[in-house]
């Protein structure tokens, strides 16, 4: 079973959930990232996601390993879609199962935050009057050492 995937076709949410079902788990949380029409009042027409696929799968697996180490008994599956996505399409599905519910929420939240830090996937927004890679104009992030700054990245 592939727990970490980059998908070119629409994601089947149930099939991601099925990967984390376990007899010991009482709680499964999912996060489903969808394409929102409005961001800061600007109307998105569609998005294009691009990935460095081989590395993205590795980094998703790393996030899963981090979670399974930090939250006892957790099981994780993540699928991220690439290509053109329209409004309300599903870009990412994260499923986490744990014995107890508090962990399932926390671990799931951890996964999406880590995806936004270390997984090589990029989003290009297309509006009526233009297009832009998200993140390249804000200049709010710099990597003085050349790599992510979080302390817990395994290399």
């Amino acid at each position: 079973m592939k727990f970490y995937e980059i998908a070119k076709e629409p994601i089947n949410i149930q099939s991601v959930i099925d990967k984390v079902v376990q007899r010991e788990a009482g709680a499964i949380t999912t996060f489903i990232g969808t394409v929102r029409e409005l961001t800061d009042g600007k109307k998105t027409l569609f998005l294009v996601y691009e990935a460095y696929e081989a590395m993205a799968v590795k980094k998703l697996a790393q996030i899963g390993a981090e979670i399974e180490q930090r939250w006892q008994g957790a099981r994780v599956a993540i699928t991220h879609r690439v290509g053109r996505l329209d409004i309300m399409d599903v870009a990412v599905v994260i499923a986490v199962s744990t014995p107890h519910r508090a962990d399932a929420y926390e671990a799931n939240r951890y996964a999406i935050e880590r995806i936004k830090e270390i997984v090589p996937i990029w989003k290009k927004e297309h509006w009526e009057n233009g297009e832009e890679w998200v993140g390249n104009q804000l200049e709010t992030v710099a990597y003085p050492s050349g790599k992510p700054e979080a302390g817990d990245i395994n290399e």
Partner: protein
Amino acid sequence: MNKVLFFAHLRDAVGEEYVTVDASGKTVAELKADLAAKYDLARMETIMTAINEEFVSNDEVIAEGDEIAFIPPVSGG
């Protein structure tokens, strides 16, 4: 030789998905500087680097055959 991959706005700026160069013996910082000059790339301090699909520091030395990827701030999710 070394394959050097570009993504997102860097790919747009370079106009190629990848280029092939001989970078062995150079540090990542040196390769970054070379390419920034050649393709007129700005804000390279916002770009991360991976060698063979793992993040590395600017002072990492590139070996023959390494695959290098320049990784703009990610925006998945």
